[in-house]
C-alpha cells in the first residue's frame, strides 16, 4: 500500500514535536453485501474505505488523527494533528528502521469473494427465503443478508515494526417472523467465518434458513418465561457470550488498569469453578474472531485466561503492556483506521469437560434450557451482566418440555463462574458476533460445551 520510506518520513513527522512512540495504521477495505426482505432482493451494496490513522504516545497521553488522504501531504497533516497532544512534552524518540515482520496467515482463503458474481450471491438469498417460507405456513416474513469484506491493513511504528495482513470475512444471516394467535415471534440464525466464498461449500444456506424459521415457529407455542432464580443448562455453542460478558471484558487490561474490573489484582486466585478453563485465541483458524496480526501489528496468539478455575492472565494491548512492562498478547484491535486500538477479545471459549450433555439435563429436576442466546452486556466494575434468551425451554423432571418466550438472564460474573457445576464434552463454537466497546465494533467468536449454571435470574413475566 505505502512504501517504507514514506512511512518512515510520516513517523518522523509525527514525532517532530516530541513523543515516545508513533504509529501509522493503513487500511484499504472493500466490501459487498446484499439484502433480501419481504421476498425481494432490496439492495446490492458495494463499499470502499481507505485511510490511515496515526497516533503519537507520550507518557500516558495519546494523540490521534486520521485521514482518507493517503498522499504524503495528507499523511503529514494527520501526523501533525496527532502530534499536538505531545507538543512540549519531551520524549524525543527516533524512528527505528522499519523491518518487515512476516507472520504465517492463520486463515487460508480458497475463493476470494470478489471473484464470485453478484448474481451468485443474490441467488443464495433467494434460496434462503424460499426455504424459510417452506418451513411452515405461519412464516409471515423473512429477511436475509449476505456480506463479505476484504480488509488489507498495514501497521508501521517508530520501534521499527512493519507488518501487514489481508483479512477476508464472509457471512450470511436469516431472520424469520412467524405469526399466530399469540402474536409474532422471530427466529434468527447466522454463519460467518474468516474465509472466502467457500463458506457456502461448508454450509447450506437453506439449513440456516430452516433453523431461523423453526426457531420462530417454536416460539409461537411458547409461554412466558419464569421469573426468579433457577438452574440453567446452556447448549454447546450457544452460550459463549456468557463468558464473553461475564468475565472476558473484565479481563481486558485497560479496564483492569483503571480499577474498573472486578478481576483487578486477582491473578493466581480461584475465580471460577475448577471445571472452567477459558481461552482467548486469535489464531483459531477460520473462526470469526481470527486474525493473523492484531491492529497494532502483533501476531495473534492463544492466551489462557483461566486454567482450572484459576485466573492466569489478562489480555493486553501495546499501551497497557508497555505500562506494565510485559509482552503484548495480540489483543490490540480497532474497528477501522478511524479508531484507536484498545484491548479486545478475539475468539473466547471454555474448553471441553467430560460429561455427556444429556446427563446435565437429566440431573436437573426444574430449570431452563437455553438453546440460543442473543446479545449481552456487562458492567465490568460490578460484574453484573445481562443476556437475552432467543431460544429457551423449560426443564421439568429432567426433561426439556415447553418453549419459553424471550427474556433476559441476569447474573453476576464472578458468581456465575463459581456456579458452573456441570460441563459436558460437546464443545462447539457459536454464531459470529460483533463485540461493542467504547463505540467500536470488532468481529469476535465464542464457544463452549453444554454446561449448567447452578442459578441464574430469569427475567420473565410469569409469576
Amino acid at each position, binding site marked *: 500500500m505505502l512504501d517504507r520510506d514514506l512511512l518512515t518520513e510520516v513517523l518522523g513527522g509525527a514525532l517532530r514535536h516530541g513523543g515516545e512512540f508513533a504509529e501509522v495504521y493503513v487500511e484499504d477495505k472493500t466490501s459487498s453485501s446484499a439484502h433480501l*426482505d*419481504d421476498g*425481494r432482493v432490496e*439492495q*446490492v*451494496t*458495494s*463499499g*470502499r474505505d*481507505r*485511510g490511515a490513522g496515526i497516533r503519537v504516545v507520550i*507518557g*500516558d*497521553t*495519546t*494523540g*490521534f*488523527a486520521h*485521514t*482518507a488522504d493517503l498522499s504524503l501531504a495528507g499523511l503529514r497533516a494527520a501526523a501533525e*494533528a496527532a502530534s*499536538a*497532544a505531545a507538543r512540549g512534552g519531551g520524549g524525543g524518540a527516533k524512528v527505528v528502521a522499519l523491518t518487515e515482520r512476516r507472520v504465517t496467515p492463520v486463515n487460508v482463503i480458497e475463493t476470494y469473494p470478489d471473484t464470485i458474481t453478484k448474481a451468485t450471491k443474490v441467488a443464495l438469498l433467494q434460496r434462503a427465503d424460499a426455504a424459510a417460507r417452506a418451513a411452515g405456513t405461519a412464516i*409471515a*416474513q423473512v429477511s436475509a443478508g449476505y456480506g463479505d469484506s476484504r480488509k488489507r491493513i498495514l501497521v508501521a511504528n517508530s520501534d521499527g515494526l512493519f507488518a501487514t495482513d489481508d483479512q477476508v470475512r464472509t457471512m450470511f444471516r436469516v431472520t424469520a*417472523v412467524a*405469526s399466530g394467535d399469540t*402474536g*409474532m*415471534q*422471530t427466529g434468527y440464525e447466522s454463519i460467518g467465518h474468516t474465509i472466502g466464498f467457500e463458506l457456502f461449500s461448508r454450509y447450506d444456506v437453506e439449513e440456516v434458513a430452516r433453523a431461523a424459521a423453526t426457531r420462530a415457529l417454536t*416460539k409461537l407455542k411458547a409461554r412466558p418465561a419464569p*421469573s*426468579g432464580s433457577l438452574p440453567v443448562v446452556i447448549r454447546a455453542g450457544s452460550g459463549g457470550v456468557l463468558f464473553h460478558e461475564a468475565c472476558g471484558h473484565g479481563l481486558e487490561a485497560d479496564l483492569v488498569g*483503571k*480499577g*474498573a474490573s*472486578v478481576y483487578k489484582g486477582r491473578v493466581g486466585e480461584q475465580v471460577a469453578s475448577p471445571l472452567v478453563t477459558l481461552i482467548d485465541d486469535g489464531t483459531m483458524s477460520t473462526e470469526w474472531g481470527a486474525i493473523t496480526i492484531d491492529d497494532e501489528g502483533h501476531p495473534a496468539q492463544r492466551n489462557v485466561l483461566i486454567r482450572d478455575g484459576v485466573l492466569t492472565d489478562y489480555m493486553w494491548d501495546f499501551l497497557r503492556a508497555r505500562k506494565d512492562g510485559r509482552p503484548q498478547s495480540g489483543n490490540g484491535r480497532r474497528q477501522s483506521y*478511524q479508531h484507536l486500538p484498545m484491548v479486545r477479545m478475539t475468539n473466547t471459549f471454555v474448553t471441553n469437560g467430560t460429561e455427556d450433555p444429556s446427563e446435565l439435563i437429566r440431573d436437573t429436576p426444574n430449570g431452563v434450557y437455553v438453546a440460543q*442466546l442473543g*446479545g*449481552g*452486556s456487562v458492567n465490568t*466494575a460490578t460484574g*453484573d*451482566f*445481562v*443476556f*437475552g434468551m432467543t431460544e429457551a425451554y423449560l426443564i421439568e423432571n429432567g426433561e426439556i418440555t415447553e418453549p419459553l418466550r*424471550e*427474556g*433476559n438472564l*441476569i*447474573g453476576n460474573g464472578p458468581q456465575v463462574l463459581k456456579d458452573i457445576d456441570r460441563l459436558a464434552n460437546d464443545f462447539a463454537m457459536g454464531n459470529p458476533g460483533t463485540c461493542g466497546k467504547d463505540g467500536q465494533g470488532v468481529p469476535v467468536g465464542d464457544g463452549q460445551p453444554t454446561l449448567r449454571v447452578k442459578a441464574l*435470574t*430469569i*427475567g*420473565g*413475566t410469569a*409469576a
Partner: protein
Amino acid sequence: MSGSEELLALARRVAEQARPGEQVEAFVSRDRDTSVRVYEGEIEQLTSAQSEGIGVRVIRDGRIGFAYAGVLDDAVVAEVLAEARDNAGFGSSDPWAGLAEPDGVAVPALELWSDDLAAFAADDKVRLALDLERRTLGLDRRIRVEEASYSDVLAEAAVATSTGIAVHGRESGCYVVVSTLADDGDETHTGFGFSVGRSPADLDPDKAAREGAERATRLIGSTKPASGRVTVVLDPYVTAQFLSIIASTLNGESVLKGRSLFANRLGEQVAPSFVTLVDDPTNPLAYTASEVDGEGLASRRNLLIDGGVLRQFVHNSYSARRAGVHSTGSAVRGGFKSTPGVGCRAIQLAPGTRSQADLVRDVGDGVLVQQVLGLHSGVNPVSGDFSSGAAGLRITGGELGAPIREFTIASTLQRMLLDIREVGGDLDWLPMSAVGMSLVIEGISLSGS
C-alpha cells in the same frame, strides 16, 4: 462557496449523470470531530479527525443498486457511481422503488450551527474535560473517575437527486460526559453524567459531575430485591431508551412488512388519554434536530400518539409510496455508508408538569429505575416482549430508599404503554434521538431473588 455548498455541487454532478430510465441520488458528507479524554489530570487521548464520503443510489426498472466510498477523489466517485449502477442489475424489481421527489413542504430554518464551536480552541476543550474530572472528584471522596471527556462534531452534508432534490446543511454539536466509579469497601458501582449542546456555552459540566457522582454513590450498599409486581419510575435517561424502542415499532416500513406489533392498530387506544407522543426533529433543542431528513425532504413535526390514540406511523418516501400515504420526512441515514431507512428522529412524550420527587411521592411504594442493562438483547420489538437488567432505588412511603441491583424488569411494550400512570415534567435533552423525562409505569414484573 461554503463547505456544504461544495458538497452539494459534487452531489449534483453525480446526480446529473443519470441516464434515461435511471434515477440517481448522491449523498455526500464531511465531518470534523474532536474528542478529548482525560484521566487523573492528564490527557489520555486527544483525537482530531476529518472524515468524508459519498453514497450513491441508482434505481432502474424498480431495482436498487447502492455503493459508497469514504474517499471523495474524482476517480473513486466515478467508480462508486459505476458500481451502484452495476449493482442495480441484481436487485428484485419493486414497483414502489424510487427516490424522494420535492413535496412542497418548506424546509424549516433551524439554528443548528455554532461558529463558536467551530472556533473553539483545542486547549479549551482539554480544559473542559479536566474541569469535569476535577469537579466530579470534588463531590464525594468515594468517587473515582474512569474517564471524563469532551467531544464535538461539525457535520456538513448534501443530497442531490435526478428527481429534483438538492439540499445542503450543516450542524454542530458537543457534549461532555463523565464515567464514574464509587467504592465502598469491596463494593464498586458505576455511574455517568453528561451535558449536551450545540455550542460550548450550552454545556453544564456541573450538572454532568453531579449526576455522575450521584448515580454511582447512591448504589452503594445495594442488594438484590425479592421478585414481585411493582410500579416503577423510570429515570429520564431510561425513559429515552424505552421511547427509542417504542419508536422502532412505529416505523412505517416495519408495519408494511408485518414486523410491527402496532400494525392494523391505527385509531386504537394504545395508551392512557393523557399520553401524547410526537417525533419532532424541527425542535432545535433536540440533539438530533435537522432541517431535512436523509432523503432531503423537509423535517416536520409528526404526531404519533394523540390522547392515547395511535394516529400515524413514520415514513420515508419508499414506505409512504407503498402504504399510499405521504412521506413524513422520516428517512434516517446512518451516514454515507447506508441507504435511507425509516425511523423516528427526535421522539418525545408531551411532558407533564411535575418533578421526579413529586412522582415518587405519589407512587408511594415502588422502584426508581436509574440504569438498564441489556435492552438490545432483552426486548423484541416484533413480539413486544420486554425484559431488561436494572439497578435503582426502592421507593418506600413516597421517598427514595435503599439501593437495589441485579434484578430484571419485564412486561410487554403494549402493556407498558397502557400502564403509564404519569409523565414527568423534567425534560432532559440527551445525545440520542429520544428526549428524556421521568415516567411512571405500573404492573412491571420484577425478578430478583
